[in-house]
Protein backbone atom coordinates (compact mmCIF):
# COMPACT_ATOMS: atom_id res chain seq x y z
CA UNK A 1 0.00 0.00 0.00
CA UNK A 2 2.78 2.37 0.81
CA UNK A 3 4.10 1.90 -2.69
CA UNK A 4 0.94 3.35 -4.23
CA UNK A 5 0.90 6.25 -1.82
CA UNK A 6 4.47 7.16 -2.51
CA UNK A 7 4.55 6.51 -6.24
CA UNK A 8 4.27 9.53 -8.53
CA UNK A 9 0.75 10.15 -9.76
CA UNK A 10 1.76 10.08 -13.41
CA UNK A 11 3.17 6.58 -13.17
CA UNK A 12 -0.12 5.29 -11.84
CA UNK A 13 -2.27 6.80 -14.60
CA UNK A 14 0.10 5.50 -17.23
CA UNK A 15 -0.40 2.02 -15.97
CA UNK A 16 -4.18 2.36 -16.14
CA UNK A 17 -3.75 3.58 -19.68
CA UNK A 18 -1.61 0.56 -20.47
CA UNK A 19 -4.20 -1.73 -18.94
CA UNK A 20 -7.06 -0.15 -20.89
CA UNK A 21 -5.08 -0.26 -24.10
CA UNK A 22 -4.16 -3.86 -23.47
CA UNK A 23 -7.83 -4.78 -23.15
CA UNK A 24 -8.75 -2.76 -26.22
CA UNK A 25 -6.01 -4.12 -28.43
CA UNK A 26 -6.90 -7.66 -27.42
CA UNK A 27 -10.46 -7.35 -28.67
CA UNK A 28 -10.24 -5.58 -31.99
CA UNK A 29 -13.44 -6.58 -33.74
CA UNK A 30 -13.16 -6.05 -37.45
CA UNK A 31 -16.01 -5.48 -39.83
CA UNK A 32 -16.53 -7.89 -42.70
CA UNK A 33 -15.88 -5.59 -45.61
CA UNK A 34 -14.68 -7.50 -48.66
CA UNK A 35 -14.49 -5.56 -51.90
CA UNK A 36 -12.44 -7.69 -54.28
CA UNK A 37 -9.85 -10.46 -54.42
CA UNK A 38 -8.17 -9.18 -51.23
CA UNK A 39 -11.33 -10.28 -49.42
CA UNK A 40 -10.41 -13.89 -50.19
CA UNK A 41 -7.10 -13.38 -48.42
CA UNK A 42 -8.91 -11.69 -45.54
CA UNK A 43 -11.13 -14.76 -45.22
CA UNK A 44 -7.99 -16.91 -45.13
CA UNK A 45 -6.59 -14.65 -42.43
CA UNK A 46 -9.71 -15.14 -40.38
CA UNK A 47 -9.71 -18.86 -41.07
CA UNK A 48 -8.10 -21.60 -39.01
CA UNK A 49 -4.59 -21.51 -40.51
CA UNK A 50 -3.70 -17.85 -40.01
CA UNK A 51 -6.37 -17.51 -37.33
CA UNK A 52 -6.79 -13.83 -36.54
CA UNK A 53 -8.97 -14.88 -33.59
CA UNK A 54 -5.90 -15.67 -31.48
CA UNK A 55 -5.23 -11.92 -31.33
CA UNK A 56 -8.75 -11.33 -30.09
CA UNK A 57 -9.93 -10.06 -33.46
CA UNK A 58 -13.33 -11.44 -34.36
CA UNK A 59 -15.32 -10.67 -37.50
CA UNK A 60 -18.48 -8.64 -37.09
CA UNK A 61 -21.29 -8.27 -39.59
CA UNK A 62 -22.23 -4.71 -38.71
CA UNK A 63 -20.26 -1.47 -38.40
CA UNK A 64 -22.07 -0.52 -35.20
CA UNK A 65 -20.15 -2.96 -33.03
CA UNK A 66 -16.87 -2.87 -34.97
CA UNK A 67 -13.60 -1.28 -33.92
CA UNK A 68 -11.75 -1.85 -37.15
CA UNK A 69 -12.59 -1.75 -40.82
CA UNK A 70 -10.28 -3.65 -43.16
CA UNK A 71 -10.72 -2.11 -46.60
CA UNK A 72 -9.80 -5.12 -48.71
CA UNK A 73 -9.90 -4.57 -52.42
CA UNK A 74 -10.51 -2.12 -55.23
CA UNK A 75 -12.57 0.82 -54.06
CA UNK A 76 -14.78 2.27 -56.76
CA UNK A 77 -16.05 5.81 -56.50
CA UNK A 78 -19.56 4.44 -56.11
CA UNK A 79 -18.44 2.31 -53.17
CA UNK A 80 -16.32 5.11 -51.70
CA UNK A 81 -19.42 7.04 -50.66
CA UNK A 82 -20.85 3.94 -49.01
CA UNK A 83 -17.54 3.24 -47.28
CA UNK A 84 -17.72 6.70 -45.74
CA UNK A 85 -21.25 5.97 -44.48
CA UNK A 86 -20.11 2.67 -42.94
CA UNK A 87 -17.11 4.34 -41.33
CA UNK A 88 -19.32 7.06 -39.86
CA UNK A 89 -21.55 4.40 -38.31
CA UNK A 90 -18.68 2.83 -36.37
CA UNK A 91 -18.35 3.93 -32.72
CA UNK A 92 -15.16 5.67 -31.59
CA UNK A 93 -12.38 4.74 -31.16
CA UNK A 94 -12.18 3.25 -34.62
CA UNK A 95 -9.35 2.13 -36.83
CA UNK A 96 -8.80 1.51 -40.52
CA UNK A 97 -6.48 -0.97 -42.20
CA UNK A 98 -5.99 -0.39 -45.91
CA UNK A 99 -5.28 -3.82 -47.36
CA UNK A 100 -3.57 -4.25 -50.71
CA UNK A 101 -2.39 -1.98 -53.50
CA UNK A 102 -5.88 -1.04 -54.65
CA UNK A 103 -7.01 0.27 -51.29
CA UNK A 104 -3.63 1.97 -50.78
CA UNK A 105 -3.42 3.93 -54.02
CA UNK A 106 -5.79 2.45 -56.59
CA UNK A 107 -3.14 -0.06 -57.57
CA UNK A 108 -3.49 -1.67 -60.96
CA UNK A 109 -6.75 0.17 -61.66
CA UNK A 110 -5.85 3.70 -60.56
CA UNK A 111 -6.20 5.13 -64.08
CA UNK A 112 -9.70 3.70 -64.51
CA UNK A 113 -12.54 6.18 -64.59
CA UNK A 114 -14.54 4.42 -61.92
CA UNK A 115 -11.85 3.72 -59.32
CA UNK A 116 -11.10 5.81 -56.24
CA UNK A 117 -7.29 5.80 -56.08
CA UNK A 118 -6.78 5.18 -52.41
CA UNK A 119 -9.19 4.77 -49.52
CA UNK A 120 -7.30 7.50 -47.64
CA UNK A 121 -9.09 10.02 -49.83
CA UNK A 122 -12.30 9.11 -48.04
CA UNK A 123 -11.45 7.92 -44.53
CA UNK A 124 -8.27 8.20 -42.41
CA UNK A 125 -6.06 5.11 -42.58
CA UNK A 126 -4.01 3.76 -39.66
CA UNK A 127 -2.09 0.90 -41.26
CA UNK A 128 -1.29 0.33 -44.91
CA UNK A 129 -0.64 -3.30 -45.88
CA UNK A 130 1.16 -3.57 -49.24
CA UNK A 131 0.73 -6.50 -51.59
CA UNK A 132 -1.42 -7.60 -54.47
CA UNK A 133 -3.02 -9.28 -52.64
CA UNK A 134 -1.17 -9.40 -49.29
CA UNK A 135 -0.67 -12.85 -47.88
CA UNK A 136 -2.47 -13.71 -44.63
CA UNK A 137 0.84 -13.29 -42.81
CA UNK A 138 1.04 -9.72 -44.08
CA UNK A 139 -2.45 -8.88 -42.87
CA UNK A 140 -1.67 -10.48 -39.52
CA UNK A 141 1.41 -8.26 -39.34
CA UNK A 142 -0.82 -5.29 -40.14
CA UNK A 143 -3.07 -6.16 -37.21
CA UNK A 144 -0.07 -6.51 -34.91
CA UNK A 145 1.15 -3.08 -36.03
CA UNK A 146 -2.28 -1.70 -35.25
CA UNK A 147 -2.16 -3.31 -31.82
CA UNK A 148 1.19 -1.62 -31.21
CA UNK A 149 -0.40 1.69 -32.17
CA UNK A 150 -3.34 1.11 -29.84
CA UNK A 151 -0.96 0.24 -27.01
CA UNK A 152 0.81 3.60 -27.42
CA UNK A 153 -2.37 5.66 -27.17
CA UNK A 154 -3.04 7.79 -24.09
CA UNK A 155 -6.56 8.53 -22.88
CA UNK A 156 -6.32 9.48 -19.20
CA UNK A 157 -3.37 11.85 -19.26
CA UNK A 158 -4.51 15.44 -19.06
CA UNK A 159 -3.24 17.38 -22.01
CA UNK A 160 -0.82 20.20 -21.05
CA UNK A 161 -2.51 23.58 -20.95
CA UNK A 162 -0.83 26.36 -22.89
CA UNK A 163 0.90 28.90 -20.62
CA UNK A 164 -1.02 31.93 -21.84
CA UNK A 165 -4.43 30.24 -21.92
Amino acid sequence: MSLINTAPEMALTTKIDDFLNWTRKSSVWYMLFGLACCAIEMMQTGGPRADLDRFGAAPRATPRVSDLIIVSGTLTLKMALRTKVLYDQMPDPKYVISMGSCANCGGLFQLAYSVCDGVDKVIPVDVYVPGCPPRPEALTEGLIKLQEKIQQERWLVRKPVAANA
Partner: protein
Amino acid sequence: MAVSDPAAVHAVLRSHFGDAIGDLAGTRPDNAGTTVAPSAIVEVCRFLKTETGLAFDCLSNLSGVDYPKRNIIEVVYHLYSYRYRHLFVLKVEAPRDNPAVSSVAGVWSAAEWQEREVFDLLGVTFEGHPDLRRILMPEDWPGHPLRKDFVEPEEYHGISTSRESLLKT
Protein backbone atom coordinates in the same frame (compact mmCIF):
# COMPACT_ATOMS: atom_id res chain seq x y z
CA MET B 1 -33.92 -29.26 -90.17
CA ALA B 2 -31.20 -27.09 -88.73
CA VAL B 3 -29.69 -24.21 -90.65
CA SER B 4 -26.21 -24.40 -89.22
CA ASP B 5 -24.23 -22.53 -91.85
CA PRO B 6 -24.01 -18.73 -91.24
CA ALA B 7 -24.37 -18.12 -94.97
CA ALA B 8 -27.59 -20.12 -94.94
CA VAL B 9 -28.88 -18.15 -91.92
CA HIS B 10 -28.05 -14.97 -93.78
CA ALA B 11 -29.85 -16.19 -96.89
CA VAL B 12 -32.98 -16.98 -94.88
CA LEU B 13 -32.90 -13.52 -93.32
CA ARG B 14 -32.41 -11.89 -96.71
CA SER B 15 -35.35 -13.70 -98.20
CA HIS B 16 -37.61 -12.59 -95.32
CA PHE B 17 -36.46 -9.05 -94.66
CA GLY B 18 -34.84 -7.98 -97.91
CA ASP B 19 -32.96 -4.68 -97.78
CA ALA B 20 -33.10 -4.45 -94.00
CA ILE B 21 -30.33 -7.07 -93.88
CA GLY B 22 -26.79 -6.06 -94.85
CA ASP B 23 -24.09 -8.20 -96.37
CA LEU B 24 -22.67 -11.25 -94.65
CA ALA B 25 -19.54 -10.34 -92.69
CA GLY B 26 -17.05 -12.52 -90.88
CA THR B 27 -15.36 -15.69 -92.03
CA ARG B 28 -15.54 -18.13 -89.15
CA PRO B 29 -18.75 -19.84 -87.99
CA ASP B 30 -18.35 -18.18 -84.58
CA ASN B 31 -18.04 -14.58 -85.76
CA ALA B 32 -20.12 -14.44 -88.91
CA GLY B 33 -22.99 -12.00 -88.91
CA THR B 34 -24.65 -9.10 -90.61
CA THR B 35 -25.83 -5.57 -90.09
CA VAL B 36 -29.53 -4.93 -89.60
CA ALA B 37 -31.52 -1.76 -90.22
CA PRO B 38 -32.50 -0.14 -86.88
CA SER B 39 -36.18 -0.23 -87.75
CA ALA B 40 -36.19 -4.02 -88.26
CA ILE B 41 -34.11 -5.26 -85.34
CA VAL B 42 -36.98 -6.44 -83.12
CA GLU B 43 -38.72 -8.31 -85.93
CA VAL B 44 -35.44 -9.90 -87.04
CA CYS B 45 -34.68 -11.01 -83.50
CA ARG B 46 -38.13 -12.45 -82.94
CA PHE B 47 -37.90 -14.28 -86.26
CA LEU B 48 -34.48 -15.71 -85.42
CA LYS B 49 -35.72 -16.89 -82.06
CA THR B 50 -38.98 -18.49 -83.13
CA GLU B 51 -38.28 -19.77 -86.65
CA THR B 52 -38.00 -23.54 -86.85
CA GLY B 53 -34.51 -24.55 -87.90
CA LEU B 54 -32.93 -21.34 -86.54
CA ALA B 55 -34.09 -21.31 -82.89
CA PHE B 56 -31.66 -18.73 -81.53
CA ASP B 57 -33.01 -19.14 -78.03
CA CYS B 58 -30.07 -17.52 -76.24
CA LEU B 59 -28.86 -13.93 -76.40
CA SER B 60 -25.34 -14.64 -75.18
CA ASN B 61 -24.13 -11.06 -75.33
CA LEU B 62 -25.36 -7.60 -76.13
CA SER B 63 -22.73 -4.91 -76.24
CA GLY B 64 -21.90 -1.62 -77.89
CA VAL B 65 -18.96 -0.07 -79.72
CA ASP B 66 -18.24 3.61 -80.25
CA TYR B 67 -16.87 4.65 -83.66
CA PRO B 68 -16.25 8.42 -83.53
CA LYS B 69 -14.74 8.58 -87.04
CA ARG B 70 -17.81 6.97 -88.60
CA ASN B 71 -19.96 8.99 -86.18
CA ILE B 72 -21.95 5.94 -85.14
CA ILE B 73 -22.44 3.72 -82.14
CA GLU B 74 -22.84 0.08 -83.01
CA VAL B 75 -24.94 -2.27 -80.88
CA VAL B 76 -23.82 -5.88 -81.27
CA TYR B 77 -26.00 -8.91 -80.57
CA HIS B 78 -24.36 -12.32 -80.18
CA LEU B 79 -26.97 -15.02 -80.63
CA TYR B 80 -26.65 -18.70 -79.85
CA SER B 81 -28.91 -21.66 -80.31
CA TYR B 82 -28.76 -24.30 -77.62
CA ARG B 83 -30.80 -26.63 -79.76
CA TYR B 84 -28.64 -26.50 -82.88
CA ARG B 85 -25.41 -25.13 -81.38
CA HIS B 86 -24.87 -22.44 -83.93
CA LEU B 87 -24.07 -18.75 -83.59
CA PHE B 88 -24.92 -15.58 -85.41
CA VAL B 89 -24.02 -11.93 -84.89
CA LEU B 90 -26.29 -8.95 -85.54
CA LYS B 91 -25.10 -5.36 -85.64
CA VAL B 92 -27.21 -2.20 -85.54
CA GLU B 93 -25.77 1.21 -86.23
CA ALA B 94 -27.13 4.24 -84.42
CA PRO B 95 -26.19 7.91 -84.92
CA ARG B 96 -23.69 9.07 -82.37
CA ASP B 97 -25.33 12.34 -81.34
CA ASN B 98 -28.68 10.78 -80.42
CA PRO B 99 -28.40 6.97 -80.45
CA ALA B 100 -31.73 5.20 -80.09
CA VAL B 101 -32.39 1.54 -80.83
CA SER B 102 -35.52 -0.52 -80.24
CA SER B 103 -35.28 -2.78 -77.22
CA VAL B 104 -35.23 -6.55 -77.67
CA ALA B 105 -36.07 -7.16 -74.01
CA GLY B 106 -39.47 -8.38 -75.16
CA VAL B 107 -37.79 -11.13 -77.19
CA TRP B 108 -35.12 -12.28 -74.75
CA SER B 109 -35.60 -11.02 -71.20
CA ALA B 110 -31.83 -11.44 -70.77
CA ALA B 111 -31.50 -8.31 -72.89
CA GLU B 112 -32.92 -6.16 -70.13
CA TRP B 113 -29.80 -5.81 -68.02
CA GLN B 114 -27.43 -5.93 -70.97
CA GLU B 115 -29.24 -3.04 -72.60
CA ARG B 116 -29.03 -1.17 -69.33
CA GLU B 117 -25.27 -1.70 -69.40
CA VAL B 118 -24.96 -0.35 -72.94
CA PHE B 119 -27.14 2.59 -71.95
CA ASP B 120 -24.99 3.20 -68.90
CA LEU B 121 -21.61 3.02 -70.58
CA LEU B 122 -22.39 4.34 -74.07
CA GLY B 123 -25.60 6.31 -73.73
CA VAL B 124 -27.70 4.34 -76.21
CA THR B 125 -31.41 4.80 -75.51
CA PHE B 126 -33.35 1.58 -75.94
CA GLU B 127 -36.93 2.40 -76.89
CA GLY B 128 -39.53 0.18 -75.27
CA HIS B 129 -37.18 -0.95 -72.49
CA PRO B 130 -39.18 -1.59 -69.29
CA ASP B 131 -36.66 -0.12 -66.86
CA LEU B 132 -33.87 1.86 -68.50
CA ARG B 133 -31.62 2.97 -65.63
CA ARG B 134 -27.88 2.95 -65.05
CA ILE B 135 -26.70 -0.44 -63.87
CA LEU B 136 -22.99 -0.06 -63.04
CA MET B 137 -22.11 3.59 -62.61
CA PRO B 138 -23.63 5.77 -59.87
CA GLU B 139 -26.97 7.36 -60.68
CA ASP B 140 -25.49 10.86 -60.67
CA TRP B 141 -22.47 10.04 -62.83
CA PRO B 142 -21.83 12.61 -65.57
CA GLY B 143 -21.70 11.21 -69.10
CA HIS B 144 -21.09 7.74 -70.47
CA PRO B 145 -17.55 6.50 -69.79
CA LEU B 146 -16.99 4.11 -72.70
CA ARG B 147 -17.48 6.85 -75.26
CA LYS B 148 -14.14 7.70 -76.83
CA ASP B 149 -14.55 11.40 -76.09
CA PHE B 150 -15.44 10.88 -72.42
CA VAL B 151 -13.45 13.17 -70.15
CA GLU B 152 -12.95 11.95 -66.61
CA PRO B 153 -14.29 14.46 -64.07
CA GLU B 154 -11.78 16.17 -61.80
CA GLU B 155 -13.62 15.06 -58.69
CA TYR B 156 -16.64 13.07 -57.64
CA HIS B 157 -18.50 14.19 -54.50
CA GLY B 158 -15.36 15.90 -53.27
CA ILE B 159 -13.12 12.89 -53.95
CA SER B 160 -10.40 13.90 -56.39
CA THR B 161 -9.90 11.36 -59.16
CA SER B 162 -6.16 11.86 -59.63
CA ARG B 163 -3.28 10.90 -57.41
CA GLU B 164 0.18 12.35 -57.27
CA SER B 165 2.91 9.85 -58.08
CA LEU B 166 5.12 8.88 -55.18
CA LEU B 167 8.05 8.33 -57.53
CA LYS B 168 10.44 11.27 -57.81
CA THR B 169 11.27 11.96 -61.41
